[in-house]
């Protein structure tokens, strides 16, 4: 089993990540990936100029690695890959690529879903939305928290 995680300080290409994740794979029939793209609109509908993801060098990488390893241990998956941007992110740029490979597709879907729920609530980032009307630090949404809470019932 391989767990690969990376914090990206510069824009990255999700398609390249998928290509790398698929490379040489012939025993795990199912690969599910999530790509999160920076939206041009904030939660209140305002036009966003930029998303800033502040990070704590070392601790942020460790938090992502831990979430990926927990996911791999919890589901019947062969491999997990996470690439997460930090710093200033422009609309349209990828924020996160998360993927899970498994012999069966249900495990791959559940692992990727879980991975994202955890990354959205527990990864060591501080998120700020910058728009023409100012900057605003963002807490995890109630929706994100509710999504993450689904797994504690299993």
């Amino acid at each position, binding site marked *: 089993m391989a767990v690969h995680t990376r914090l990206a300080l510069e824009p990255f290409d999700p398609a390249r990540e998928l290509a790398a994740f698929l490379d040489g794979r012939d025993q795990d029939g199912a690969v599910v990936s999530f790509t999160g793209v920076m939206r041009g609109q904030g939660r209140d509908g305002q036009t966003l100029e930029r998303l800033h993801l502040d990070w704590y060098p070392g601790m942020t990488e460790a938090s*992502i690695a831990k979430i990926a390893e927990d996911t791999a241990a919890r589901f019947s998956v062969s491999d997990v890959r996470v690439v997460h941007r930090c710093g200033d992110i422009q609309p349209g740029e990828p924020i996160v690529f998360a993927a899970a490979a498994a012999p069966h597709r249900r495990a791959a879907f559940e692992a990727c879903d879980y991975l994202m729920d955890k*990354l959205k609530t527990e*990864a060591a*980032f*501080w998120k700020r939305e910058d728009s023409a009307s100012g900057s605003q630090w963002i807490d995890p949404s109630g929706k994100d928290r509710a999504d993450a809470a689904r797994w504690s019932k299993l």
Partner: protein
Amino acid sequence: MSKVLFFGRTADRLGRSREVEIPPAGLSIADLRQRLCNADETARDALDRPDVRACVDQVIVGDDARIAPDQEIAFFSVFSGG
């Protein structure tokens, strides 16, 4: 001098870091927080809040945790997630 790091909205107010003197005998997080708050109003506004957590050597700790001069200390509000 030891460096105390700040992140997120805490860093917005206090900058990325401040230098503090940790005595050789160590200090509790509560003491350090108090000391930083006493320095100025901005620091009090930023740090004297229940949602601002302390972290020693990249592990989140409670207020009674002890810190030594060579440890890495940080204060920040709760993570937003990615």
